[in-house]
């Protein structure tokens, strides 16, 4: 009885077997994140420092990819201008699902110091693509990058793959 109940349990990721499979798949996606570094401005330099020996971003299992097709998440580091906005959209659409977005720095979060008089600055990259994790700072410290990366991994590892409708309460 107990086992059967568990297999049908809508709140346990669809039972033992599916739950474990889901866990494995999420584990794979969260631990192996290849990123497209969309370096735009100051934050990109800090991100380069983040990649270097002292902080070593690759500890999290990330590998830089230069082609959006092979990337799992896009790291928007810096000010997004109107001239650039269309390109970000295109690159985001070129990425293969499942894809995530990390918005780094005040500028790409909300326009940052350029929010008031920046006639050519897009006030937040979330106006054109959906953002998963925001990393605040101008520019963020490497520790903030680490925190943001861990937040993304956390988010991925709790994603629902099976029985999405049930878990979201849609019958």
């Amino acid at each position, binding site marked *: 009885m107990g086992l059967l109940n568990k297999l049908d349990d809508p709140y346990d990721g669809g039972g033992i077997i599916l739950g474990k499979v889901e866990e494995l798949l999420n584990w794979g996606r969260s631990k192996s994140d290849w990123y497209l570094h969309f370096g735009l401005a100051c934050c990109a330099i800090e991100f380069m420092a983040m990649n270097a020996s002292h902080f070593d971003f690759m500890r999290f299992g990330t590998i830089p990819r230069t082609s959006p097709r092979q990337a799992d998440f896009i790291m928007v580091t810096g000010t997004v201008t*109107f001239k650039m*906005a269309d390109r970000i959209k295109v690159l985001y659409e070129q990425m293969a699902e499942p894809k995530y977005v990390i918005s780094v720095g005040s500028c790409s979060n909300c326009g940052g110091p350029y929010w008031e008089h920046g006639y*050519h600055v897009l*006030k937040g990259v979330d*106006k*054109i693509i959906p953002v998963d994790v925001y990393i605040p700072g101008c520019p963020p410290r490497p520790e903030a990058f680490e925190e943001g990366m861990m937040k993304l991994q956390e988010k991925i590892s709790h994603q629902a793959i099976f029985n999405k409708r049930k878990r979201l309460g849609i019958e």
Partner: protein
Amino acid sequence: MLPNEIFEKLRSVYSDQIIELIENHPSDSFITVNASALFEICHSLRDEAFFMFDYLMSLTGMDLGENLGVVYHLYSMQLKHKIVIKAFVPKEQPKVPSVERIWRTADWHEREAYDLIGVNFEGHHNLIRILLPYDWEGYPLRKDYTAPEMYHGMKVS
């Protein structure tokens, strides 16, 4: 050479095209010239042996309300002296001769001044916007500029 010497020398050649020399310490001294003769003046500033201004440090466009101004900061690599040249043109017809053929570096500077202020450089081989998108409207650094509401479906401000 000091600014007043340069001014005198220029005056002796281009008598009525050189308008005035303004010296006001601690500000930089500058020479105002007629925009129509700018190309010739710049040419001799570069080529005459006592000027030798071979290095255009900066080219600035300015909005002065009624007029638009163009400011040239010149430096001589050999003689180690500098001078500031200014020219003013009315806002309705902002036509300034291009000095791109004299100093190649002026190419992008002039495109920038055209892009942000709207100075029309005559004789420039490719006077198009450089920083803003090609389909942008208006000249943002003019004092009376108001940013558009939307650009390509994105809210500007």
